């Protein structure tokens, strides 16, 4: 073993006692066990709650309400899912959520990426704070004034109104992430491009943008997910045909009984898309955030 390898293990290199290898092995073993224990402790709450959700959704009411709780459904039943889908137009709500969050994210990217770039290069932290104010304002305070305006413009209960409202969520996220990201990009390439006679826009487009791809991915995903998960706006502003998924989930709360099975099934249906998205894209998210995406923010 090399000196540095031993040094990595934090072990002093002096001494040649025969007992040392055993102690080293034991210590390393103990540390490894401790490490894996820590991993288990950290990760298990995350997965266990989702597994419990799944279990609840696959059992009928009687089984769900027994105590001690039953973990493995026996027999498993899809009745809850069938009920959720047959009593609610899940396909429609899914489409609505997709349209609203998709458009809100797209628009946020169109205005947010240039804004993030401008703010980063100007080092205008005050403008950043201004945009953060959007993030800081409680969502409820937007609702009544916006509702009145939409009503006046005849946009009530439309998807357009929802998209506009969701911009409140997506634009600050995109601007914040992109500003942080652009700040960490070295300026030399841009300086070179500018000296060569390029305009700011073209510099942004051909030089900065390709380099910022990881940051863009992060911004897109975060903006989309937070918009998708939004409950309050969809619940108050949407109409029958334009409701989004989270608002629809709350409607599954039937009048006659707190039906645990269908509720869990609805919860799974709503969260599954974003969970799958997360699993497949998590590498990108981590890559984007760990390349100093938020370092300068």
């Amino acid at each position: 073993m090399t000196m540095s390898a031993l040094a990595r293990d934090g072990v002093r290199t002096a001494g040649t006692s025969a007992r040392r290898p055993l102690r080293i092995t034991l210590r390393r073993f103990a540390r490894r066990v401790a490490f894996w224990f820590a991993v288990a402790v950290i990760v298990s709450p995350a997965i266990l709650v989702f597994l419990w959700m799944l279990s609840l959704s696959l059992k009928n009411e009687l089984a769900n309400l027994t105590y001690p709780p039953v973990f493995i459904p026996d027999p498993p039943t899809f009745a809850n899912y069938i009920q959720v889908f047959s009593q609610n137009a899940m396909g429609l709500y899914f489409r609505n959520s997709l349209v609203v969050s998709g458009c809100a994210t797209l628009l946020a990217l169109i205005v947010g990426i240039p804004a993030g770039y401008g703010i980063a290069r100007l080092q205008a932290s005050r403008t950043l704070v201004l945009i953060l104010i959007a993030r800081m304002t409680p969502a409820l305070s937007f609702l009544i004034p916006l509702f009145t305006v939409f009503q006046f413009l005849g946009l009530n209960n439309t998807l357009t109104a929802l998209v506009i409202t969701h911009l409140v969520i997506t634009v600050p996220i995109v601007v914040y992430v992109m500003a942080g990201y652009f700040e960490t990009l070295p300026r030399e390439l841009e300086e070179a491009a500018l000296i060569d006679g390029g305009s700011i826009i073209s510099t942004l487009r051909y030089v900065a943008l390709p380099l910022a791809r990881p940051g863009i991915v992060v911004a897109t995903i975060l903006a989309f997910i937070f918009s998708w998960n939004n409950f309050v706006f969809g619940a108050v502003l949407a109409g029958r045909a334009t409701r989004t998924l989270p608002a629809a989930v709350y409607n599954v709360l039937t009048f006659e009984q707190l039906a645990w099975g269908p509720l869990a099934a609805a919860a799974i249906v709503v969260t599954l898309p974003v969970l799958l998205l997360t699993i497949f894209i998590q590498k990108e998210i981590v890559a984007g955030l760990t390349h100093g995406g938020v370092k300068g923010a």
Partner: protein
Amino acid sequence: MTTSAVTTALTVPRAAFLRRRRRSYRLLTVPALIVVAGVIVFPWLFTLYMSAFDWKIGEAARFVGLANYTGLATNQRFIEAIVHTFYFTLLAVVFPLLLGTAAALIFHREFRGRGFLRAIFTLPMMATPVAVALVWTMMFHPQQGVLNYLLSLVGLPPSLWVYSPTWVIPSLVIVEVWHWTPLVMLIVLGGLAALPTEPYESARLDGASEWQLLRYITLPLIMPFIVVAAVIRTIDAVKAFDTIYVISSGGPGTASETINLYLYLQAFAFYNIGNASAVVVVFFAIIVALALLLLHVRQRARWSA
């Protein structure tokens, strides 16, 4: 040419060049600012205007000036709401910071299955809050819930969780911690990934222990990231709504009624728009004060890093 002339020849066009550049950068920010202005400024003006009135939907509006604000200052329920908000926020920021940083340190090391486990760990953050809150409500049930069952397995007595005025806020914090620790972890992980390796090598050669490395090198270097996470967490925790609304709706009684819950009650249950607008203004002032405080701390951390 003299040096000054050369300098002048170089600086004057350069200054103009820089000015033009700054203007272009500024132009780039305009579309976003228009969006922000349109969707946010109007409601804000409306809110400020309405806060000077006493208006309930269905009744006539009456101008009362600052009466709503003085009313809030002496309103015991509102003051309790502020206390609850701070209590909740404190817990909901500190614990995710601690656990998230620990998780980041763990996930910074290479180990088998890291990518997969990291993905699982990130899931709670992405799950729809409303949906998950409904599930947590079921888990918190004193008689039928699985959490009390788990407690009984380890020999602890069952708890009232969110049905007890004393424990409702800590119980809600558990949900928040579960939900948002991954976000803290990701931010801090970003910081860890950007760490230079030189200080570590030289420190190890000097015989420093893992603990000393952590305390004197790692932590100070990632402090800016921890502060960023703290800012984001604080703003989100102060505004927390979906989770609390679904699980306890501010109860039992008013034990978990935060400012945001109180606002919802005033605006959408009592239709007391005038008073609700005043609450929004006060609420916002509190958030801004907290954010400024934390940003100030962040600036200091940045310079000393």
